[in-house]
């Protein structure tokens, strides 16, 4: 009879959609279902109770539930994008202008004035810096949006239930449109300079994923922390600014001196991401197993810890936000 409860709940996809899987933790459910299995068949609504009670310790990451709310994730991401372009006078043009103008300023200041050179004579500094700005601006934008995302959506948190992860996740994903536009601009720029992308470009999606994971990992920490301490939102712009200087956006990774400093730079996952972008797009020095693996490991640690911290704090968001 116990096996019946599963088949019964699958019979009603509508009701199964949002229902949480709770079988493992609540013996009440099991007893409820088994005692009433016969009557439950006729019940037009699902035969399984969702139990809400205080959870202690570290909550499990419920990916299945997150999947059930994928459409909400889609709509919130869509909203963020729509609202951003509607409110700006320049609209989508802004997504083109911002990296382009940054690139121009970088080229004038760092290349012409300070003499920072692209490591490859065939690649002009303009293209070199733009290839670095591409993942960097995605990362910086994701941090800026997601950091305040939970607080900014406080009315949702206190009025409707959904997995709270959806909020910072949609804030991060909303940056992908800008990223896509910037990417096209870069391709245009490369075409203008007569630079063909290398075949390594097939690996670019992997680095995009790494950038996404990095952005999400840091965003989880920042957004959750910001609910508890509003100071975080004032720290973020400062953090992003400093972080850019310790990431190889302006300069190539080859210029990072050997020794302990290189170890310190490797701990910054954006070093691996930006190096990877330049390698895949422009055929520059591969960030090396050293950078890449350390970056990857750091991202995994940040992401897993971020998820756990977020899940732990999630249950009090509605009370304290």
């Amino acid at each position, binding site marked *: 009879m116990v096996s019946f409860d599963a088949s019964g709940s699958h019979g009603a996809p509508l009701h199964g959609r949002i229902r949480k899987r709770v079988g493992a933790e609540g013996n009440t459910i099991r007893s*409820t279902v088994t005692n*009433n299995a016969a009557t439950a068949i006729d019940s037009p609504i699902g*035969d399984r109770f969702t139990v809400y009670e*205080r959870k202690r310790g570290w909550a499990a990451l419920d990916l299945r539930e997150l999947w059930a709310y994928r*459409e909400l994730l889609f709509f919130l991401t869509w909203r963020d994008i729509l*609202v951003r372009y509607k409110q700006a006078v320049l609209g989508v043009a802004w997504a083109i202008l911002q990296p382009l103008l940054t690139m121009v300023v970088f080229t004038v200041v760092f290349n012409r004035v300070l003499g920072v050179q692209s490591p490859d004579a065939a690649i002009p500094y303009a293209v070199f810096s733009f290839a670095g700005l591409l993942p960097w601006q995605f990362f910086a934008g994701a941090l800026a949006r997601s950091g305040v995302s939970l607080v900014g959506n406080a009315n949702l948190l206190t*009025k409707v*239930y959904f997995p709270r992860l959806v909020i910072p996740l949609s804030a991060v994903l909303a940056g992908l449109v800008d990223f896509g536009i910037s990417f096209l601009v870069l391709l245009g720029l490369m075409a203008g300079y007569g630079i063909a992308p290398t075949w390594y470009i097939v690996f670019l999606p992997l680095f995009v994923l790494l950038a996404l994971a990095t952005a999400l990992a840091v965003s989880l920490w920042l957004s959750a922390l910001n609910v508890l301490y509003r100071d975080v939102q004032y720290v973020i712009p400062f953090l992003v600014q400093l972080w850019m200087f310790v990431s190889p956006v302006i300069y190539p990774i080859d210029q990072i001196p050997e020794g302990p400093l290189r170890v310190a730079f490797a701990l910054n996952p954006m070093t691996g991401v930006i190096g990877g972008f330049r390698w895949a797009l422009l055929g520059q020095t591969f960030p090396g197993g050293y950078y890449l693996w350390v970056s990857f490991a750091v991202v995994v640690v940040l992401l897993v810890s971020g998820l756990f911290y977020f899940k732990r704090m999630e249950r009090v968001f509605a009370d304290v936000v």
Partner: protein
Amino acid sequence: MSDIAVRTVGLGKMYRIGGEREAYGTLRDTLVRAAKRPLERLRHPGAATHISEDLWALRDIDLEVKQGEVLGIIGRNGSGKSTLLKVLSHITEPTEGRAEVRGRVASLLEVGTGFHNELTGRENIQLNGAILGMTRAEIRSKFDDIVEFSEIGRFLDTPVKRYSSGMYVRLAFAVAAHVDPDVMLIDEVLAVGDLEFRRKCMGKMRDVGSGGRSVVFVSHDMSHIRQLCHRVYLLDRGGVVAVGDPESICSMYESRAGSGGQMPNPSLRGLAFGQHDVGPRIDTVELRDLPDDALRSEYEFGESFDLVVKLSPETQPSRKEYSALWFLHDGLGRQLASGWSSPMDDVVFGEADTGMRCRVGPLSVPTGEYSFRLVLHVPHYENFDDWPEAVRFRVRRCDPFESGYDYPGLHSVAFFLPHKWGKTA
């Protein structure tokens, strides 16, 4: 039981007010407190560390909602109604006990949750639908119904920031009304919109209840509770005080809240005019019925009663003659009628008077909730006391034509005008 849709067992929710939230915020504990401690000591040497107070918004709530039942929850502000809905909606976690909910849940704790002003009506329907738990396919299939129900018509592609508040609310309710959950949790959302739209909402709500779905409905409006609910829980200070049929529980609540007698909180009055300590003050306002002069808070159409006012002894007599004035308000706060002791009746009061009595009736208003506001003043010169909602009462039945049909209040007319129809030759 298999026909239970919602059940709570020993449910409790505690908030920690003031002080630090020690229960959570491990990072805060370790970092911030560590940093704050020395500062705190510098500022208040010898002071005790933060004292926090535990507030149980809910305690030991055992409640059951059957499948297809519309359950009402009433209680004063702060009695825990909204917290209960938040726990059942899974928005907040209970501190103790357990809530069990079966099937798909939709919570309507406010109208238009997640509406974005920059987006158009069309976009907001999609967004709000997703937030309330509808799938994209569902939103698509119900889209036309929602638009029709909301009556926004050609404004569909206008940003909602340009909507009138009425349109905004209609659209928001229209989306919510088309969510199709097994359990619906609703907080006061009917208290919006114009009369016509409210009536439509009430009809929709009744459909929800009769469609086999369960509804938990929180409201301050007893007439809504009486019209919609099958069973009612009365909450007070986080606990269940009474459970039963809507009529008896609502009456119990109204008598507690002071209908037909004193308002529980006289300090609320006098805010409108800024009163002084000089002159007469109202002590109590009561509605009494003639034969045995008993307190009564329920009347039928055509009945009369006495409005009985007791005055507090004047601490600082004004030595002025003053008049009394009442306003009759309906449940929406609309002013329907008034009665002056002077110049209408040419009765004035003075320092020596300790009370007043005003015969009111026969009542010509439809079924619903009403209240009297009382004012003591020297017209155009000085207000001594002003007490909005000094006394409340209800018109239980309204059948002016003795047709056996009960004319529902609020949705039709403000009052009945005696009349007679005939044919011309």
